[in-house]
């Protein structure tokens, strides 16, 4: 059913090259010198969970815990090293809002470019265009190349596009940090509206208030594993405990 997704024992391994071979010349010479020096780093390991259609799930964890890796797998950008990630339906990833922007094109052209990246034709985007511009409050600047935009304007346009493509799964990664308070509130309202429309939401944030307000279920990621999966309030408590114990361990170790 569209809007569902599940992870089964998903693991993602990054190879960290200490002495990286980046040229053919080195690769050929390296055969004789054994310079290949690769460390494996498992950003995620043994992650299993299921999200039902229409559920809004939060994702919290300290920096480097594997949240972003998990999101990128859900968005289809990364292919897991092991396990299976099944995602059904149209995903609108708000991972890096302005990812698809071409700085030399105008705001107007970028709306269509971004739409194309999400699989919308020119005509479909034209129908959404006025709404997008209105939401972003950029009508005055829509024909200016986006390289001249401020970071707040970038984020507003990016959010307006991502929020208007009727996704079945909306993935939000800490994107509300930019923009002023009023616009953030507007974004939260828009997200609630999308949620009310039956869209599945996957929300990552360090803002515990936003997470508890928006989500009915929260996953805590810790060192590449899901340490907790359940009610928001309990999850936040669990997350704080983990953080304190990490800080404590560091104080003893340091």
């Amino acid at each position: 059913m569209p809007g569902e997704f599940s992870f089964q024992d998903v693991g993602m391994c990054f190879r960290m090259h200490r002495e990286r071979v980046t040229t053919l010349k080195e690769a050929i010479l390296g055969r004789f010198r054994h310079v290949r020096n690769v460390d494996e780093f498992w950003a995620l390991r043994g992650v299993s969970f299921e999200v039902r259609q229409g559920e809004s799930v939060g994702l919290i964890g300290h920096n480097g815990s594997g949240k972003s890796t998990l999101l990128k797998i859900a968005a289809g950008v990364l292919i897991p090293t092991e396990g299976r990630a099944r995602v059904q339906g149209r995903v609108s990833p708000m991972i890096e809002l302005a990812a698809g922007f071409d700085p030399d094109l105008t705001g107007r052209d970028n709306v269509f470019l971004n739409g194309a990246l999400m699989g919308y034709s020119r005509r479909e985007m034209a129908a959404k265009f006025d709404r997008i511009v209105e939401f972003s409050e950029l009508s005055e600047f829509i024909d200016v190349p986006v390289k001249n935009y401020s970071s707040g304007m970038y984020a507003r346009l990016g959010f307006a596009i991502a929020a208007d493509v009727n996704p079945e799964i909306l993935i939000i990664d800490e994107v509300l940090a930019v923009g002023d308070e009023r616009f953030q509130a507007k974004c939260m309202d828009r997200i609630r509206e999308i949620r009310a429309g039956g869209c599945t939401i996957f929300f990552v944030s360090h803002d515990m208030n936003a997470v508890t307000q928006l989500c009915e279920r929260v996953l805590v990621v810790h060192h590449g594993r899901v340490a907790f999966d359940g009610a928001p309030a309990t999850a936040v408590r669990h997350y704080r405990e983990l953080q304190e114990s990490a800080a404590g361990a560091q104080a003893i170790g340091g």
Partner: protein
Amino acid sequence: MFWTLLNPLLQMAVYTLVFRTIMKVGLPAFPVFLLSGLLPWTFISVSATTSAHALLNNQGLIRKVAVPQAVYPLAVVGSKLVDLLFSLAPLALIAALMGRPPSVAWLALLPALVAAIAFTTGLSLVFSSLMVFFRDTRHLVDILFQVWFYLTPVLYPSSYVDGLPQRWIRSVLALNPASPIVRCFQQAIYEQRLPDVSTLGAALTCGAIALAVGFATFERLQHRHIHYF
């Protein structure tokens, strides 16, 4: 657009000056011969050398948006194909002015284009992927296409090669997969006849093999690209 059309015409003017006026290559309607081979060759070489950078230049997008990665090299091939199609117009004009107007044989350009596109796509996929793993691929590709240009009958007719006394040179040059593709264009445009079945067959075979190898390689390697950016 203007520059796209001007570039092959300028090249044609210079090569004609050097080869016909200075070196006295006695080929009738030399500019037509030259352009009919130079245009497909330029399509192949410019597409392949440009798409070698396609994945690297778009790594920001690849890391964030889930789009099949083959899109990036294919977009390069597509845009160069448009250039090629547009530059057929001045070629037709020059050919008509020099007494070799477009004939029914131009219909053979369709299968010839198919072969050229398939061949170019295969090369582009392989080079764009290889470039992610080994950054010095760019030098390799540049040198490869410089040498390859002179080994392909663009500046000289392939009959010159067939007339060479050294048998080994002939057999080595006969292995050049770009030759039958370029030959198809020359036969249809310059010689105003349908290409030989053997030449067209060889061109299509080379195109099919390059495309299959290119896609198979790309398919196997694309998930590893993201770790090498």
